[in-house]
């Protein structure tokens, strides 16, 4: 090592140019033949330049702060400094007092006397402390001034750091009474100053006054009184007559007092009030937080299009709207505009204990946060979080310069900062960046998963409801057929007609009914109407004089404590025909007409939450009214209850019972989802105050579209095309059906109707027919956006009616 050290010194001397000519030549010759030495010389030269850069960089950085923040200058180097100080809003300051002994003495220092004659300061008790300048020292005075003396703060006259004990003397007069008693004035030139207090500071080593190293300024924190804003720091200069003139005023920095960050409110202004107004529990912070943070997902926009849906960032949306070529290549995609405001994920990243004891955990920042929400500019929030080692006031000024002049008012307060341990600011800023990004992504995924699951459940639910509706329809049509056949048989029996022809379908149109054989056709028709209307009627055969009567009687059922169940359904089960019929729910009572030719059972099914209930009663032929009490049911008890019924009846009713439970649960789910969606929608303007109002957005979106797609023959022609009567269909049952099928389809750029799909079903033959209509539909005029054809998706209903409009007929079957 010695050799290497020596070699390095040689290189230094060579580089310094302090070698003699001879020595230099010899060294150069040696270097010429030694590649490693040449490398060492080169490296050492570079390293020396690197060393030289360090102090220059420090100077550049310091000058930058002076340039940007007009940073308060450290105390000047004079030994004696008396100052008048006040700071607003600094309330309690607690700090460790460490490192030194404190003596409180009346003994007057000779040095003090030199400056303070008998009229100045003589009534004040000097505080004298001996400190070790080799370590950091914090002192707390009786009036509450905190002195922070860094190690190596004192220098002698030659600028050398003092390592021996330093005696620090302080006088303080913060209260007006003390100031007057001390004979101190508050004159600056000819102006009388309003004072927030004065203090005198002196330091000596070995009986000699010491200087303060400008690079290691001593910091004094002086308790402020409320109402004393805009105080400045004056330096005292002793005049010939022994009084003090206060000169050289400088603005003061206000230190911040951190509080527990979780007690602060970083929500957008009005968020809690709005929640309260909407009847939500504003004491439930967990709920309010998770709801607020969930809005982070709304910072993303969704682009949907044929067969695709994906999430994109705001920037991407802006790009795609800005760049027309991109927009046109994405024809057919609807972009939902993103919301503008402070990203809740960013708030989440700072609003936690990790940022305690920083600028952010202060009442002052809480106030900034409200202003930041008002700007909707995430860059402003970033600015505060990324500069935790700066004064709030400085960042206020920067924010104002970023185009938010409202921050000028805040900047004028010149609020300071909460001091951080070395490296903390960078670490926290990094945490903030990584955290907020991760949180935003997680929220987006959760939100997306939640809402797409709701969509899936909605689809499944719609399908099941369609299926159930279809089954009910089929069941009722079958029942009608059977009851009608039974009535026909009964009428024939009464008329004494022995031989029955095959049952015929009743005609639909009145004018189409030909009457070649009066007996059969008339009877048919009358019976059909009676069966459909469930009303008593008779028909007489003119040839024989015999009269046939079909009797219906009104019948009602009352369910005990009807109101305590969420759903109640009552069914009539005629024993003669294997079928059942749902009674009309009048709220208080259930009613339906009973056919006198049948004997009935009444089955009642109820639901409360997921609990199921049931009851069964055989109805006496003369009974007009029954009263039933429900009992709890499960699958096996329900099976027992329905054991006497036909297999198809009990199967159908058991299915109705299960369906009721499912439907109830699904309705609850939908209601909750809807309530959440409504709540979020109502909060959107609060969370994202800069978003375009909903209506305006819709207008703007419509404005983007020059024209929507059109059916060429016009809207009336389309209506006619989409109103269908299926009287000639193969499936005779469809003749009685009325209802609507919804079809979802695309109109492509060339007007072709593409990919029709059913979004609401009715009955298989109707569904099939509706799809056929769209598959064979003529071309449309496509939608136009920015002058170019644009593919768009539409929804239309196909109406099924028993009659074409313009003809009349009695209603025969009321379809649900």
């Amino acid at each position: 090592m010695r050799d290497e050290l020596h070699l390095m010194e040689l290189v230094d001397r060579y580089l310094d140019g302090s070698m003699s000519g001879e020595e230099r030549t010899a060294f150069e010759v040696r270097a010429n033949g030694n590649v490693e030495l040449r490398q060492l010389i080169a490296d050492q030269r570079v390293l020396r330049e690197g060393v030289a850069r360090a102090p220059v960089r420090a100077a550049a950085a310091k000058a930058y702060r002076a340039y940007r923040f007009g940073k308060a200058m450290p105390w000047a180097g004079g030994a004696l400094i008396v100052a008048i100080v006040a700071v607003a809003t600094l309330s309690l300051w607690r700090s460790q007092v460490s490192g030194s002994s404190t003596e409180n003495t009346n003994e007057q220092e000779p040095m003090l006397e030199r400056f303070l004659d008998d009229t100045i300061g003589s009534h004040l008790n000097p505080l004298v402390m001996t400190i070790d300048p080799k370590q950091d020292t914090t002192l707390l005075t009786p009036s509450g001034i905190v002195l922070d003396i860094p190690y190596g703060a004192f220098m002698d006259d030659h600028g050398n750091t003092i390592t021996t004990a330093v005696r620090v003397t302080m006088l303080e007069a913060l209260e007006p009474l003390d100031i007057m008693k001390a004979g101190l004035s508050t004159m600056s030139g000819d102006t009388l100053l309003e004072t927030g207090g004065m203090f005198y500071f002196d330091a000596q080593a070995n009986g000699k006054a010491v200087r303060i190293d400008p690079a290691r300024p001593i910091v004094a924190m002086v308790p402020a009184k409320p109402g004393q804003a805009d105080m400045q720091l004056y330096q005292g200069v002793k005049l010939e007559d022994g009084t003090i003139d206060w000169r050289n005023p400088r603005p003061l920095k206000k230190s911040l007092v951190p509080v527990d960050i979780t007690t602060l409110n970083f929500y957008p202004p009005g968020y809690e009030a709005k929640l309260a107004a909407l009847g939500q529990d504003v004491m439930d912070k967990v709920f309010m937080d998770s709801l607020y943070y969930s809005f982070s997902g709304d910072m993303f926009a969704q682009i949907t299009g044929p067969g695709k849906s994906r999430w994109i960032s705001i920037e991407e949306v802006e790009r795609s709207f800005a760049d027309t070529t991109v927009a046109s290549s994405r024809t057919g995609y609807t972009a939902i505009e993103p919301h503008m405001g402070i990203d809740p994920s960013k708030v989440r990243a700072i609003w936690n204990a990790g940022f305690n004891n920083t600028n952010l955990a202060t009442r002052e920042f809480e106030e900034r946060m409200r202003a930041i929400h008002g700007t909707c500019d995430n860059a402003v929030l970033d600015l505060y979080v990324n500069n935790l080692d700066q004064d709030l006031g400085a960042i206020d000024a920067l924010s104002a310069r970023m185009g938010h002049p409202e921050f000028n008012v805040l900047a004028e307060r010149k609020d300071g900062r909460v001091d951080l341990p070395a490296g903390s600011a960078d670490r926290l800023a990094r945490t903030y960046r990584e955290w907020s990004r991760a949180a935003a992504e997680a929220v987006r995924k959760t939100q997306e998963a939640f809402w797409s699951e709701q969509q899936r459940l909605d689809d499944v639910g719609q399908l099941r409801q369609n299926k159930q509706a279809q089954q009910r329809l089929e069941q009722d049509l079958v029942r009608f057929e059977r009851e009608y056949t039974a009535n026909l048989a009964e009428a024939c029996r009464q008329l004494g007609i022995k031989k029955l022809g095959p049952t015929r379908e009743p005609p639909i149109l009145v004018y189409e009914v030909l009457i070649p054989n009066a007996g059969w056709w008339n009877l048919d028709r009358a019976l059909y109407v009676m069966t459909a209307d469930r009303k008593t009627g008779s028909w007489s055969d003119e040839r024989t004089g015999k009269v046939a009567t079909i009797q219906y009687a009104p019948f009602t059922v009352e369910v005990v404590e009807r109101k305590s169940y969420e759903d109640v359904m009552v069914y009539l089960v005629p024993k003669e025909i294997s079928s059942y019929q749902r009674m009309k729910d009048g709220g208080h009572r259930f009613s339906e007409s009973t056919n006198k030719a049948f004997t009935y059972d009444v089955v009642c099914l109820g639901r409360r939450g997921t609990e199921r209930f049931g009851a069964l009663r055989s109805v006496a032929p003369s009974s007009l009214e029954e009263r039933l009490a429900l009992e709890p049911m499960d699958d096996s008890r329900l099976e027992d209850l329905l054991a006497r019924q036909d297999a198809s009846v009990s199967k159908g009713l058991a299915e109705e019972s299960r369906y009721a439970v499912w439907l109830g649960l699904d309705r609850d789910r939908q209601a909750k989802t809807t309530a959440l969606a409504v709540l979020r929608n109502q909060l959107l303007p609060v969370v994202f105050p800069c978003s375009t109002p909903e209506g305006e957005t819709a207008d703007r979106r419509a404005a983007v579209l020059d024209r929507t797609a059109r059916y060429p023959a016009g809207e009336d022609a389309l209506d006619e095309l989409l109103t269908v009567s299926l009287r000639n269909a193969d499936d005779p049952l469809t003749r009685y059906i009325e209802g609507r099928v919804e079809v979802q389809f695309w109109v492509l750029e060339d007007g072709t109707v593409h990919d029709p799909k059913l979004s609401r079903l009715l009955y298989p033959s109707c569904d099939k027919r509706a799809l056929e209509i769209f598959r064979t539909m003529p071309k449309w005029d496509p939608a136009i956006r920015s002058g170019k054809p644009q593919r768009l998706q539409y929804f239309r209903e196909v109406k099924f009616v028993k009659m074409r409009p313009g003809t009349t007929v009695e209603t025969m079957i009321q379809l649900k």
Partner: protein
Amino acid sequence: MDDQRIIGLIHQGKDHEAFKALYAYLPKVEHLVRQNSGRRGDAKDIFQDALIIFHRRVRSEEFALTSSIGTFLFAVCRNLWRDELRRRNKSLGEWKLETEADEPADLTALLAREGEFKQAEKALKSLGAKCVDVLTRFYVKHEPLAQIAKSLGFSGEGAAKTRKYKCLEEARKRYRNMMGTTVATMQHP
């Protein structure tokens, strides 16, 4: 403040005053950087690098001012930022400001050299404040070893010398590492 006065300040060692005045050119650089996918902080960093480069040029003997300080600083910053973008693998396709006519001709060589110095500075900084302190006192302030020992609390001149050697040697290793080469252990012949 005119250019000659700033140069005068640097010669007098009043770097702080000089730099404070020179920061007047920062907004222009900020504009350049922010137009080219940078942030305000990036602008500050490269501007400080430029100040250091300028400072070294003024202090070196061969210095002659061939353009205004503002032009020089701006040209240096533009080049530094271009290098930085290249380093970040950003496309230069959208580069908005082309090389200007009055750009000093030897800038590329100068910046390559300064880049090495900056690496050396980084290597030194990674050693900690104490090492930087020793080396600065020795090489920049030219304090005698005895005084360095006294100020920093070393037992004697020898200890200060050893410390200086160790710091420099370690810095060299780290610097070589950064530059992608290893230091061959030197043997005194």
